[in-house]
């Protein structure tokens, strides 16, 4: 075995790393970020940017950063380093875990160990000056040191025994605070030595005065709280396992008041680190997802105005009718609001409310059920009366009024007025009676709004077509009408012919639609569905038919989606989650803003320009909330991967434009698709939520298709496509139906082979089952060809081998054996029972964790890695009989479980839970060429591929990309 080599001569070159952000500190104008063993520095200004990234420690992660005297102390594990300008960085170490450290003065450093002992070190010589303890050496999870003018106080958060506050100079214990239950994960003393705050396993924050009296408690975190910090006196910011960051205020009561909650602050689980700085008015957080986010403390005082109806009447100088209230509103192009009251008064708001004068007759015609809508690109609104008369109001220096008539609706009433965007726009009056056609008018905005033509469209003869959104496509001259029940109609204006597409998916109302790209005979569109679904599809027309294809469909687990659009290449979605309105960036996976408005049962709208303006009614008030995005990329200053351990990853076979597609699947069932670039950067575009249980594996079948498997017998085939702008998209193409109504088997692995009908697929299960399927690509159906059991132990691996026109399957299992069956004859003779294996050979003591096959002309090389640390090369020969021969056995192929093997060229890469990645040659027996430590813990999967040379991507609690 090869021991770890020096960084200089390594065959591995680390390119990029994404993983848990273990510490953050704002110092002067810099954000310092402990990113595994790497220290990243960002400049703090409104254009926050990465200044530098430097690996400080060889192995240890940076768990703490302290600053002072123009020096930076980084520490983690038993390592520490003091960084000063111009001086080389040297990794130092003590003999035990360091909890925290501070500079006492220019030349003195103090370190707190996990046994509650302080090391006092002379920074000029790095000599130990003193070891100080308070006679209480409980093991610590956390701690902090507050250095003051006259005193230094150590706060120790123990694993079992509460908080110990002690004086460094007197070595006396000041307080032992035992109010918390469970381990203490953070404890801090404020800068004036007036307060102590701590948090723990019990999910509370406790605020004490420095005399040790418990003043107040903060309840709200849904799981363990990892970190807290004082700001603005007694305010506290906290972050934890529940992925929230919370800000609290002490208002002299026994309960801390929650000022703000940032939900889904990071992906998956854990906000590990954070800091706050009131000079820059920012907070910064880091998560297990490897992301670093900056938050504007401006969220604590939102730009929000609420007007009561009385204030509005007073402002606009009109007399309120009994129970009069705002009924609805729209925004003009000038970004002024136009509102209509329940008595038909029309108001305009331009920093001041005023009445748009309508005659009594006009108000009479519009009636109490008038519908107000915005007219595109003309600074106008339309108001439809219940019986279809439409009043156009064009706002210029004066208000110009124009009336348009509709046909009589035989007593039926207009329930909605839909207007398409664009310079040429359509106005459609929806009538619930399906026998009465939709009344449609085409307008032009050239030189003021003018009516071009009027016509009707017969309603689909079904009672459930309720139009919710219309779009006009000028390229094909199509009017596209979206409805409830995820149904849509494409109305060809050339031929006057309607094409209806019912129930594109199970779901409720289409809440918004966007035309992404349109070409002759092909329109790409996106819709959002209230239930939380968004989908991208293409309407295709040829001489015979019009069809709709869904290219991508995903479900958000955040609540209801009321709308969505693309902005600067990002998909933005908005809607309601319980009593909140949210705006969510789906591409970047973060919440842009939210408003506690009471829920969706009210009139509201979101107006998007450069900023976001959310306006809503609440009883008799109207509230206008503006959100200005202070930072580029929504404050996401460093992007990451998954918030939980990555369990499977794969690179696309082909390299295109200097990148490969990458898919990663994590423990929290999320599948992400992105691109891996030559420099190791991963840029994700989608986060798919189709799986609902523990992921097992994900692999590409071809460049266009991939498969993934999980518990609950989930097995999906995915199809890769492309969005109009070239962004790769992924869609669930087919799924295997579980064998029972309550599936509890895990599909541990799968193998596949392209054939003329589609794919031959083998799935192996946690109950030792093996199933061979024919996937029919035309019918998108699976046909079970062969079924059988191996033993009753859990299968872990499967491969398909093709030798001499025969087909075999090769499995690996938890019993340490590999086994081989022949299947081509079974398929040919339509025998559905798998039977006994031809070969069953023990290779490992226990689980065959990794299995890699190389098909050579005259034999098959099988390389296996086990839970028993062994790496084994064996050869299979397929002559008249199959023979197995051991070629190479490396007992200590790792110091703990080998978890994956990936191959490229004549070399393989292995990963193991000892966090050493090894590069091997296997041609003439296994030979380890290189072994290098990775900071990715729980190292569980890898893949290799060529992007101008070989890259390997290593997954676990994070993702590292290395070149070799």
């Amino acid at each position, binding site marked *: 075995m090869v021991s770890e080599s020096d960084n200089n001569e390594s065959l591995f070159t680390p390119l990029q790393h994404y993983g848990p952000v273990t510490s953050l500190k704002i110092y002067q104008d810099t954000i310092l970020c402990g990113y595994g063993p790497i220290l990243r520095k960002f400049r703090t200004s409104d254009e926050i940017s990465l200044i530098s990234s430097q690996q400080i420690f060889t*192995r240890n992660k940076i768990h703490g950063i302290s600053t002072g005297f123009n020096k930076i102390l980084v520490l*983690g594990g038993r390592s520490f380093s003091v960084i000063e300008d111009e001086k080389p960085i040297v990794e130092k170490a003590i003999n035990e875990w360091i909890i925290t450290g501070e500079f006492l003065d220019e030349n003195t450093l103090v370190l707190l160990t996990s046994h509650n002992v302080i090391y006092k070190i002379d920074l000029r*010589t790095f000599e130990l000056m003193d070891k100080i303890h308070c006679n209480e050496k409980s093991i610590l999870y956390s701690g902090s040191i507050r250095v003051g003018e006259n005193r230094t106080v150590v706060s120790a958060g123990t694993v079992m025994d509460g908080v110990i506050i002690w004086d460094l100079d007197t070595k006396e214990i000041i307080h032992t605070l035992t109010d918390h239950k*469970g381990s203490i994960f953070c404890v801090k003393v404020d800068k004036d030595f007036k307060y102590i705050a701590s948090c723990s396993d019990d999910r509370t924050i406790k605020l004490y005065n420095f005399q040790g009296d418990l003043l107040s408690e903060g309840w709200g975190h849904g799981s363990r709280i990892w970190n807290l910090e004082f700001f603005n006196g007694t305010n506290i910011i906290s972050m934890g396992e529940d992925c929230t960051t919370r800000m609290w205020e002490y208002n002299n009561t026994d309960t801390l008041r929650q000022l703000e909650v940032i939900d889904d602050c990071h992906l998956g689980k854990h906000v590990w680190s954070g800091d706050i700085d009131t000079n820059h008015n920012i907070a910064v957080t880091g998560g297990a997802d490897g992301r670093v986010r900056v938050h504007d403390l401006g969220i604590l005082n939102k730009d929000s105005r609420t007007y009561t109806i009385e204030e509005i009447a007073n402002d606009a100088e009109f007399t309120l009718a009994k129970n009069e209230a705002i009924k609805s509103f729209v925004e003009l192009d000038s970004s002024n609001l136009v509102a209509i009251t329940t008595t038909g008064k029309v108001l305009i708001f331009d920093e001041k409310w005023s009445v748009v004068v309508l005659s009594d007759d006009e108000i009479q015609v519009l009636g109490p059920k008038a519908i107000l809508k915005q007219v595109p690109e003309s600074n106008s609104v339309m108001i439809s009366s219940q019986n279809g008369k439409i009043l156009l109001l064009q706002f210029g220096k004066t208000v110009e009024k124009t009336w348009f008539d509709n046909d009589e609706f035989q007593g039926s009433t207009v329930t909605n007025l839909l207007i398409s965007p664009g310079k040429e726009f359509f106005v459609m009056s929806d009538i619930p009676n399906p026998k009465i056609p939709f009344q449609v008018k085409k307008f032009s905005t050239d030189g003021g709004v003018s009516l071009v033509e009027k016509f009707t469209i017969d309603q689909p003869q079904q009672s459930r077509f309720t139009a919710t959104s219309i779009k006009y496509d000028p390229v094909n001259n199509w009017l596209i009408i979206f409805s409830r029940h995820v149904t849509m109609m494409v109305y060809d204006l050339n031929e006057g012919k309607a094409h209806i597409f019912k129930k594109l998916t199970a779901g409720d109302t289409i809440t918004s639609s966007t035309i992404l790209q349109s070409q002759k005979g092909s329109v790409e569109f996106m819709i959002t569905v209230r239930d939380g679904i968004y989908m991208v599809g293409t309407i295709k027309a040829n001489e015979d038919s019009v069809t709709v294809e869904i290219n991508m469909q995903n479900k958000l687990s955040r609540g209801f989606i009321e709308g969505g659009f693309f902005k600067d290449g990002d998909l933005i979605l908005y809607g309601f989650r319980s009593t909140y309105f949210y705006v969510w960036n789906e591409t970047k996976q973060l919440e842009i803003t939210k408003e506690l408005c009471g829920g969706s049962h009210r009139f509201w709208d979101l107006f998007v320009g450069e900023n976001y303006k959310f306006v809503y009614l609440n009883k008799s008030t109207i509230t206008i909330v503006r959100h200005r995005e202070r930072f580029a990329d929504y404050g996401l200053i460093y992007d990451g991967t998954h918030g939980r351990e990555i369990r499977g990853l794969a690179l696309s076979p082909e390299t295109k434009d200097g990148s490969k597609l990458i898919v990663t699947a994590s423990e929290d069932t999320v599948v992400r698709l992105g691109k891996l670039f030559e420099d190791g950067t991963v840029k994700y575009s989608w986060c798919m939520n189709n799986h609902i249980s523990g992921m097992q594996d994900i692999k590409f079948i071809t460049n266009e298709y991939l498969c993934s498997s999980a518990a609950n017998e989930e097995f999906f085939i995915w199809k890769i496509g492309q969005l109009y702008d070239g962004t790769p998209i992924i869609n669930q193409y087919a799924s295997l139906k579980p064998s029972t109504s309550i599936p*509890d088997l895990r599909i541990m692995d799968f193998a596949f082979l392209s054939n003329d009908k589609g794919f031959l697929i083998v799935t192996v299960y946690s109950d030792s089952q093996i199933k061979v399927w024919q996937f029919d690509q035309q019918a998108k159906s699976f046909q079970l060809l062969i079924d059988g059991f191996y033993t*009753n132990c859990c299968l872990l691996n499967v491969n398909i081998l093709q030798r001499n026109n025969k087909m075999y399957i090769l499995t690996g299992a938890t019993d340490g054996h590999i086994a081989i069956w022949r299947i081509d004859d079974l398929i040919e003779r339509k025998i559905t029972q798998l039977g006994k294996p031809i070969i069953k050979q023990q290779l490992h003591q226990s689980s065959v964790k990794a299995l890699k096959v190389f098909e050579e002309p005259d034999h098959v090389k099988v390389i296996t890695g086990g839970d*028993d*640390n062994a790496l084994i090369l064996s050869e299979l020969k397929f002559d008249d009989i199959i023979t197995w021969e051991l070629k190479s056995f490396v007992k200590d192929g790792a110091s703990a479980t080998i978890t994956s093997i990936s191959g490229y060229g004549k070399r393989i890469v292995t990963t193991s839970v000892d966090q050493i990645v090894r590069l091997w040659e296997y041609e003439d027996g296994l030979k380890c060429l290189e072994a290098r430590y990775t900071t990715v*813990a729980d190292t569980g999967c890898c893949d290799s591929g060529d992007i101008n040379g070989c890259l390997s991507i290593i997954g676990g609690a994070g993702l590292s990309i290395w070149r070799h």
Partner: protein
Amino acid sequence: MGKNSKDKRDLYYRRAKEEGYRARSAFKLLQMNEQFALFDDISKVVDLCAAPGSWCQVLTSEIKKDKKIVAVDLQPMTPIDGVTCLQADITHPKTLQKILDIFDGEKADFVCSDGAPDVTGLHDLDEYIQAQLVLSALQLTTCILKPGGKFVAKIFRGRDIDLLYNQLNHLFETVICAKPRSSRGSSLEAFVVCLNYQPPKDWNPQLKLNQSTEEFFENVDIGKAKNVQYFDLNDDERSIVKFLACGDLNDGDSDATYTLDKERIVLPPVQMPTAPPYKEALEMKRKGLAR
């Protein structure tokens, strides 16, 4: 996960309930015993971090001769016939004295620990805390185990497990990494089985109040990293030990899913879990007092 699906997912969970064990971990000790004959010729046993007590259950039933079993845990434990339960801190000198008193001043033949902290998710920290727990168990062990005795402790196999292997190698003739089949293959859990305790000559290990594990092992060389001059980074001594999968292949696979009889009665667990530290926080959420 419902009780029924947990039964299917986990053969040993179900079997533990059927056989009256307080936890499925009982089978891990049984399988290690099958492999290493741990219980042959022993009578005085210390079970550290013993709650809820499944290892004690195994020890009382499997050790046939005049046995003396002491169980130590910070948590209270439901009594077991033939086991002396001490609710005590394993690092405290008084605990050591109490055990010695129970053994009439004689030393133990076997010390075991199945203890593990709640993991945080920071793998390096979790591994460190687990190693600290093993070292805490080991320091008590060095004070109470007779030369030639055996020590078994739970470990997490991770980036620094070879440090711990190396340290144990300094004190025992044989150290093996054992993985019982009842321990899930998907888990990093394993056990160190340390045979033939051979303390360095002239070493008189002493538990003292307020002494860290580092200080305890300071005057004996077990290959632990030391503070070197100017705190320069020094290499750690690491070694790999033999791996042995324990338990018969036909014993059942903790990773496999088993088909269950539909008419089967789902048994309740033998012992209900104890109240977690966040019990009150859960109640506050439920009442809507915290969001």
